């Protein structure tokens, strides 16, 4: 769509650009920070912020030396002609406006480090270890800020990603298929109760999930389906159907009547007509809903938490569990978060146009 941008003065345009750039930067920084952190060495993550990988001025260690054993740390200490207490030395003292002298460790270490302020470029230790660790199911080792080695059980994100695929792909395709059949019936077939049933579909658009969860859970428990993929497909299909039927109906009902009539004249059954004509013609609408539903299912946490529990964990549950167990292990949390985002981001950027169309068509989802 080429639409003429309203002519406005240069200063207005500059203000607009500045405001937009500020907003966009604010919006992007959170994701960017997580992205950078997920590639940093675990030891670095504990001891400095992710922004330290950007060029900046920092204190760089240039020298270190040992104070004599005879020195009493409880008395004021004189180094290079400056006298301060142990606590002050430990905080670091800037001398000659350019060098920082700092006591390293406890009183017994008697080790002094000298720092100078210098420019650092993109000097980060980037690594893929975090990703390897978060994908692994076995035990993993990493170093904390003090250089201690810590051993943890991996969160097995590799399985979680596969589980997510096994849940999300059928839970996207099945409702589309079922809804397309129903939408075609509502649009082009006569059957008793057609209108009141469609009104019911519209009413169900906004019914909150929470109203349905407990009774469905009771059914699944009775049928022994808890923790299976089938339970997730059934639940997501049920919850996604109102919007799917509504969207696809809006599209399929606008297809020209002639094409069906000529197909029927050629002796095609409604089934053949549906497979050969309706499905191919409705691809834009099918794609819009597919992206919508796929992102919804992939990113869903509540339904997975309730029906899958700890069995067959999907990425969202695995990530949430990791937040609970390893709240401070940022190298694992950030790489896990990024792994959970890769698939939806690809789908999103690849098919953004269809996604937007789907959003517009379905105003309110329950």
């Amino acid at each position, binding site marked *: 769509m080429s*639409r003429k941008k309203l002519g406005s003065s240069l200063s207005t345009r500059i203000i607009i650009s500045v405001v937009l750039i500020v907003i966009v930067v604010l919006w992007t920084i959170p994701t960017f920070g997580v992205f950078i952190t997920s590639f940093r060495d675990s030891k670095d993550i504990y001891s400095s912020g992710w922004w330290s990988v950007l060029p900046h001025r920092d204190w760089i260690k240039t020298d270190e030396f040992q104070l004599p054993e005879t020195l009493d740390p409880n008395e004021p200490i004189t180094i290079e002609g400056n006298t301060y207490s142990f606590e002050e030395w430990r905080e670091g003292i800037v001398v000659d406006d350019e060098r920082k002298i700092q006591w390293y460790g406890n009183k017994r270490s008697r080790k002094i480090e000298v720092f100078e302020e210098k420019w650092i470029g993109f000097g980060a230790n980037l690594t893929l270890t975090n990703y390897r660790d978060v994908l692994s199911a076995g035990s993993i080792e990493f170093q904390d800020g003090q250089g201690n080695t810590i051993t943890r059980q991996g969160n097995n994100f590799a399985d979680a990603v596969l589980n997510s695929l*096994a849940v999300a792909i059928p839970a996207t395709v099945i409702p589309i298929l079922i809804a397309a059949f129903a939408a075609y019936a509502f649009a082009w077939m006569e059957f008793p109760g057609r209108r009141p049933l469609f009104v019911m579909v519209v009413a169900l658009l906004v019914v909150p999930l929470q109203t349905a969860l407990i009774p469905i859970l009771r059914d699944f428990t009775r049928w022994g389906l808890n923790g299976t993929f089938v339970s997730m497909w059934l639940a997501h299909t049920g919850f996604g159907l109102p919007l799917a039927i509504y969207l696809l109906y809006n599209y399929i009902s606008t297809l020209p009547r002639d094409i069906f009539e000529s197909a029927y004249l050629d002796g095609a*059954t409604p089934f053949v007509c549906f497979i050969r004509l309706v499905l191919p013609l409705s691809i834009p609408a099918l794609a819009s809903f597919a992206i919508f539903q796929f992102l919804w299912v992939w990113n869903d946490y*509540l339904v997975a938490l309730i029906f899958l529990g700890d069995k067959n964990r999907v990425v969202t549950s695995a990530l949430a569990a990791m937040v609970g167990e390893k709240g401070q292990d940022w190298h694992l949390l*950030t790489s896990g*978060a990024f792994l959970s985002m890769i698939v939806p*981001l690809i789908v999103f950027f690849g098919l953004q146009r269809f996604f937007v169309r789907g959003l517009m068509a379905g105003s309110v989802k329950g």
Partner: protein
Amino acid sequence: MNQSKSLINYLKLFALVIIALVILVAGFFLLQRFQETKLLMTLFAVIWGVGSVALLYFVLNTVAQSMPKKIRSVSVAIVFAGPALALLFWALVLPTLRSFWLSFFGAAGKHFVGLANYRFAFSDPIMLESFRNNLLWMVFGTSFCVILGILIAVLSDKSKKEKLFKSLIFMPMAISFVGAGVIWKFIYAYKGEGINIVEIGLLNAIMVALGKEAQAWLLVSFWNNFFLIIIMVWLQTGYAMVIISSAIKGIPNDINEAAQVDGANGISIFFRITLPYIMPTIVTVSTTILIFSLKLFDIVRVMTGGNYGTNVIANEFYQRQFTYGNTGQASAIAIVLLVVIIPVLIYNLKEFKNRRILK
């Protein structure tokens, strides 16, 4: 001769139904055995799950086509619409009624307790706190999203890099609430006090750089609600922006040009023309985000678990059912959620009637 032919047809049909049933049942049990090799299991799950649904329709349609001519067209319609309607009935209609029923019963769903669960829902301190917080989410979350969405949509409409700006703002829509929770937990990270501690959370690093004290943001009572609301604003502003932006594009160009010829400036064009024109869209977007913030669960669950004064209704629903095992109270909370949404439901139905779909 004719009779034997139709008999053979029925036998064929019968065999088809049996084969389909075997595939459905055997697939289910096979799937349970594949736990060892995950990749194979995923492939099998996808193919079997999708394939058996397609097979089901094929078989049902073959059965319907073999019906006598008189009832054939109705049976085909039932095959087409039936599965969807049956699923809707089982997954949404029936559960709503069952939840309503359960809400009058005790913890295990066996003893009738009258309105006790509703009394709990409207008087328990934790519920009152949740109601207050949900109100904060609905009022502030929705208005921030919509106002920012309008601002960005209007400004980017005048910018040359519109597409780039808009897709960057829209991007969080692809991220799960749990993922967003991790992203923002990292922003709010707090390391505590001590010598030579370096704050690795962005917000606290900024505070320290400004010479202020670092804080455990998620523990600051009352205000922590707003730190959580910011996350939803970050996620949902893109949605508001995209919908509003397309409404703005729908304003006929000559109206704007006429106003410009009359000497109206940008701001008065916005308030006199743009805003009234996109008002219906703003109402729709606001309603969607309102409902959304009413049912909000994931962010609170992941960030604070509902502690430190940040509980919300949907989280309390989860707690009642799965932490306290009280089905009655959880069901009452679910019904309260439904009742709050009913005005929107009625509005939708009215709109539907006005559009005269399904003559």
